């Protein structure tokens, strides 16, 4: 009888804890991220852990693990999973890093980073998105993410310098204050382009006070690979 009860409790707890999207998430990491060349285990593990479906509008939850960005309102999007993974890997996060994110959006990228590093500072210019993402991240138990509703142009001077800066909103220029707040030897990644258009990811590196850029890869819904 006791054994039966134990089995029942185990089954029930497994059922209660079951995240209905676990398989979708694992498939997403395997087919959209690993197979496209992301090798950093820390990034992969974080992508497997963060429940992306909780960061998209309810009516789009079934599409949360699709290979594409999704609209989150206010003309903004949650990036394609691969882009989030790619940006995370390229800034080489380690557990002692302090990072700044410009463009919190739904808070998904911040959550992925928060699984890896000690402190994530994130700024969102749209008040409604800032409030909703702060609430969501708090509810999900992320205590190392600090959300601010402000203009990302100025960065977050009080907590500078940062080991890395991720800009998730496309920009026409690279704000000088952000370069200033980047630690020497630090890396910044920024997409150039508009959502739903071709975005070019740029890597900016600061070494001995000298700044260089590298246009990395064009990204849209799937990564670009040369066919010929």
């Amino acid at each position, binding site marked *: 009888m006791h054994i039966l009860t134990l089995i029942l409790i185990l089954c029930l707890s497994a059922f209660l804890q079951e995240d209905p999207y676990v398989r979708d998430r694992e498939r997403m990491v395997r087919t959209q991220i690993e197979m496209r060349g992301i090798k950093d285990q820390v990034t992969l593990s974080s992508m497997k852990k963060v429940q992306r479906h909780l960061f998209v509008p309810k009516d789009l939850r079934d599409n949360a693990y699709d290979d594409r960005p*999704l609209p989150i309102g206010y003309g903004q999007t949650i990036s394609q999973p691969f882009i989030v993974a790619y940006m995370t890997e390229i800034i080489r996060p380690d557990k002692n890093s302090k990072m700044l994110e410009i463009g919190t959006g739904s808070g998904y990228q911040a959550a992925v980073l928060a699984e890896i590093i000690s402190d994530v500072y994130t700024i969102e*210019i749209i008040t409604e998105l800032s409030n909703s993402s702060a609430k969501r991240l708090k509810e999900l138990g992320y205590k190392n993410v600090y959300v601010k509703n402000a203009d990302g*142009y100025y960065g977050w001077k009080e907590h500078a310098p940062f080991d890395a800066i991720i800009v998730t909103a496309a920009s026409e220029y690279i704000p000088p204050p952000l370069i200033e707040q980047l630690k020497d030897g630090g890396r910044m990644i920024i997409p150039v382009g508009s959502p*739903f258009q071709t975005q070019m990811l740029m890597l900016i590196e600061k070494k001995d006070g000298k700044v260089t850029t590298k246009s990395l890869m064009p990204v849209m819904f799937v990564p670009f690979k040369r066919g010929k």
Partner: protein
Amino acid sequence: MHIFSITQWYHFAFMVISVALLGFGAAGSFIALFKNRLIANAPWLIPFSMLISGLLQCSAIFLSQLPFARFDSYLIFADYSQFINLIITYLIFFLPFFFGALSIGLSFIIYIDQIGKLYFSNLTGSGLGGIAALILYSIFLPEEISSLISLLPIISALILFPKNYKRIFTVIFTLSIAVSVFFFINPSALKKSEFKSISKTLNLIDAKVVFIKNSPYGLIEVVSSPVLRYSQGLSLAYQKEVPQSKAIFLNGDWFGAIVKANNGKNEFLHYTTTALPYAMKEKESVLILNAGSGIETAQAISYNANRITAVEQNSIIISLMKNEFAEDSDSLYHHKNLTIRNIDSRTFLQADTNKYDLITLPYTNSFGGGVGLYALQEQYLLTVDSFEDMFDHLNSEGVICVSSWIDYPFRNPLKVLSTIVEVLHEKNITEFKNHIAAVKSWGTITFVVKISPLNSEEIMNIRSFCDLLMFDPVILPDLSESERIKYNSMQDEKFFEYIDEILSGHRSRFYEEYDFNIKPADDDQPYFSQFLKWKSLSYLKDVYGIRNAPFLEIGYLLVMITFIQIVIIAFVLIVLPLFKTDLKGNGKLKTLIYFGAIGLGYMFVEIIFIQRFILYFGNIIYAAAAVISSMLICSGVGSYLSSKIKGSKRNLIFICGLILAVLILYKFLLTPVLQSTIGFEFFLKVVIAFFLIAVPSFLMGMPFPIGLKIISAGNKSLVAWAWGINGCSSVVSSILVVVVAVELGFAVVILIAALSYLTAALTNVSLYHSVSNNNLE
């Protein structure tokens, strides 16, 4: 059209034109199918249909904004349920045209003996409507205009309503006017796509629209926000604050920023690649084409140019910069060194006789490279012919400067370079590298081209400029590979290979082999931003996936999709029902060919005239209004006079033959005549244009009413059939003409128009015979 340009994108204008014409075509089929019943009820049905048309017209915007109908063109690609909303929107805009056309079509059949006069009124009304639209656009907001013009069908219903229904009608009429007035006073606010530039900008902190004005150019809005800044492609070496600016939007799309002139001390304007020509050598006289809100003008002022000429065709923007927002730009457009010319840049170049040290053009593409949104827009400023004009305006040491965002896959920068190289080739210059300099930042590239070779001082200055601002030279004499990536490297370094291919002797092969169309545009095919090659679609599919291909070249694809949809819908709604009619003999096929051919020919001529007169008048709005209105009015007169011409075989062949001859003459003479008179006084140009348009239009107004008269003598059922076929042909031609112009050029468009009338002339003979035979039967 205007409303869809504002809430979505201008491509939906094609959809509206097609839906309108489809309404006409479907009404023709409906009449053909239910002719007897409709004619029996015509006395009340004609005004009633017109009334319904008016009511649907004034409520169409309101209905299309409701949740079950509202769609977002970008979401269509992410959420397929949006297709249903798109179809509902189609229907909402289809019905007013269907009911209006039902009323007109019935009138044509019942009063066939007066068809010339009726067709005259119809065409003249449409022509005057084109002129009235210009006036209304200047006074009212777009959402108010549709309710205002809905009064016209409602009033026409009042005139036609039979007396025995007067009491009922008085009630209906009063209610209709009340509805129309209600929507005029309380227009539905236009909800723009959340992905439009203005919607995104309005999401910024404290962002608000501070100015709004409708105009024939489109809806102009100015937005302010304390966090709105403008500085395209700013150098990483810039350490100071980027100043705040207001932003101008045209139909919800980014137009330009209002930047403070700051007494010529706007330092950030020196930190972009567009500053390259000033870094090479001091510039005394500068010509700024498509000056817009004045960024390049502010830059020229900041470099102390003594004689600056800014050319901008949008008079509202000039007025804003001179008046309402003069303070925001530090009176930029009142600067003592500046002359502003309110005209199209190409037209200005053809009439101007001055020489300049520098001619600058704005960025060729939007931020991020664009997605082919402008693929179907004629860009006469970016053709080989245009660059040749610019060269003729340069001093011996003068330069042309043109910039672009480095898009991916690489398209815009390559096409800019191929255009420049082609012009140098035309000027018998073969050592291209000695005449072109190109410099890139992390995202932008600026090209400078000279007739005389770059001298050593200029080359040295360009290198210093690059080092100072962390830019890299891409084209320069004696350039090493490492210099090209000193500050800004690229993962895909094939960009440099492509640049070198274009500069090499086998560039034609490269144009053929490259995945996108980067062959230079010319005045015959002025579609600079049309990069899509159909043969490359499978490549795009492989690389990006078919769902994503549209995000690269959405413009042309949207038109092709619309074309396919329209052909299918037109066939189902117009052609198929007509085969159900009880017509006998071979009249159907002849009628189909005859009325199809004249519908296609007319539409093709209309479009070719608009394209040619854009350059002539230097203003797309006035060119379109002048051409459409003149054509319709002159065709109306032709139609009216056709009632006095005997509908004989000889006369029909003679008229179609005359049209054919005029069009062939125009193929060879129109462009030279326009080019040689473009510098004339405006009034004289209007007279010349009217004469050029009037001759063929007058003649083209005749074949339709004469044809209708002939077939009605043989078999009255064919009248509705012909009306439907003509509508169908117009629907398909309105989009087909765009495809032909893009793929084959305007010369072919006019040739096809001529061939259509030849076909009509040949069918005239058969038409006459078949109808006569039917008559005999």
